[in-house]
């Protein structure tokens, strides 16, 4: 059978591969190459070795945005997962209206980042104005503004995944634990959490990469103000690339570093949590 299928490569694979080459492979390779070049358009690229990479750290904006992004990601990963898990636990208790609540909490996911950014800008600036402050007063306000926005957007999504995980736990398991005299915290720690480990893995992965790659929300909510203090990695790269003449190569080099960081995180995280799953 394999042989019969094999001849159909041009029909089954070629269209996807052509698009994949145009949409992913070619830009990726060209991007890596350009990070070693000085250029304003692709055609005038001159190879300059590692100069762009050196230039990245001549100014501290990249390091700042990296730290900001890491902090943001840690805070959102923790908060989103804890909240989503807690809400999922409550919503699986089977009280009146759980389906409505689930619907409401999931809703913000369908709204685009740009739109969300402007919606929250109005609300948060309105609240802060009562204290004579604004979102762009300092990076602290921007940071927590982004955290709140991200929570609002993603808690529902992760909650849905956790609910599915919790509902998959066989009821007898918990009953048995109860009969054995386990307290609620013990059941949570020793039965429920190990059983939903796959959900935890996937949710951590999703929130991690979402946090690192956040762009639209950042652009719409604070646009990096003040003084680039609330600028996250993705926005910093975009601004370096398109905002300053002569810095195209530096922007591309930053993007390569960004790619490496995201890849490492994805690999490490995947290894850590899957090894935990295997153990139990």
């Amino acid at each position, binding site marked *: 059978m394999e042989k019969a299928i094999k001849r159909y490569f041009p029909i089954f694979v070629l269209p996807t591969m052509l698009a994949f080459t145009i949409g992913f492979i070619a830009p990726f390779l060209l991007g890596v190459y350009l990070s070693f070049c000085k250029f304003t358009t692709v055609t005038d690229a001159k190879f300059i070795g590692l100069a762009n990479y050196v230039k990245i750290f001549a100014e501290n904006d990249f390091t700042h945005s990296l730290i900001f992004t890491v902090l943001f990601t840690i805070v959102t990963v923790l908060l989103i997962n804890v909240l989503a898990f807690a809400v999922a636990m409550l919503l699986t208790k089977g009280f009146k209206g759980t389906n409505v609540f689930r619907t409401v909490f*999931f809703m913000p996911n369908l709204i685009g980042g740009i739109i969300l950014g402007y919606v929250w800008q*109005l609300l948060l600036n309105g609240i802060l104005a009562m204290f004579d402050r604004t979102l762009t007063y300092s990076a602290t306000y921007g940071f927590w503004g982004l955290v709140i926005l991200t929570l609002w957007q993603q808690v529902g999504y992760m909650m849905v995944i956790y609910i599915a995980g919790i509902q998959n736990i066989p009821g007898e398991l918990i009953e048995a634990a109860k009969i054995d005299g386990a307290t609620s915290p013990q059941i949570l720690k020793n039965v429920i959490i190990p059983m939903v480990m796959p959900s935890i893995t996937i949710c951590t992965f999703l929130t991690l990469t979402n946090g690192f*790659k956040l762009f639209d929300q950042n652009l719409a909510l604070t646009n990096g103000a003040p003084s680039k203090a609330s600028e996250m990695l993705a926005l910093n790269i975009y601004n370096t690339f398109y905002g300053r003449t002569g810095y195209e190569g530096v922007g591309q080099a930053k993007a390569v570093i960004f790619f490496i960081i995201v890849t490492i995180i994805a690999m490490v995280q995947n290894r850590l949590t899957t090894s935990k799953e295997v153990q139990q």
Partner: protein
Amino acid sequence: MDKKKCKHGTLLTVIFTIISVLYVYPIILVVLNSFKKKAYISKAPFALPTGKTFVGIENYIRGIEKTGLIAAFGWTLFITVLSVAVIILCCSMTAWYIVRVKNVATKIIYTACLIAMVVPFQMEMYTLSKIANMLHMDNPWGIIIIYLGFGAGLAVFMFTGFVKSIPLEIEEAAMIDGCTPIQTFFQVVMPIMKPTCITVAILQAMWIWNDYLLPSLVLDTKKYKTLSIAIQYLKGGYGSVDMGAMMGVLVISIIPIIIFYLACQKYIIEGVVAGAVKG
């Protein structure tokens, strides 16, 4: 779990009702402000539109005119629907092929798809828009191919995950009955994959509909705008961020999504769950 005695049922219902109302409040706030005169929006966002501050649907009209919102809506719908359809068709075929045919090439393709899932868009933003422009793909037709290419990673990954679980016997039986691989795929494999198709469609549609940076760099924005581009376009302009038009445009972009969501929420939530379990 079955619905039996939940200790504090009523209390929880009350608490969650309050939280739910707070949860939708940001959107209600935007709707309220969309009826206010623009000068009063950022000054007193929490005041209700009354008397002097009420302007009816003026903000909506101005917003639609300024951004070409109707056309943007049409293009966004056009791009999303066609891209998702093409992604489903092409990627499911590719996934089936690379699972059933095992050689170096298919292994490379699979690995490339895994990498593609992690690569941040900033890595490709300039080169992709440049290539798209060179190949005359800076229009709503061309961008579909780009979305196929950029979305292939996740889609192929998810489809392969599913195809691996389909028992070979069914397909072999079909082939013995004289089906060509194409017939086998469309008559036998595709129907089994329907749930995965829905999952992939939902995940991809949520991404493409809301995407901002890719279309803004790739599309010829003087001719074609998507919703996100149209909204971002309102910002700026020598300090004239027209808050009135902004509110109107936000409401118009949010409401259809919510209606669509309420109508199809069962599929959407199930799709997301299925996607997460396989991913």
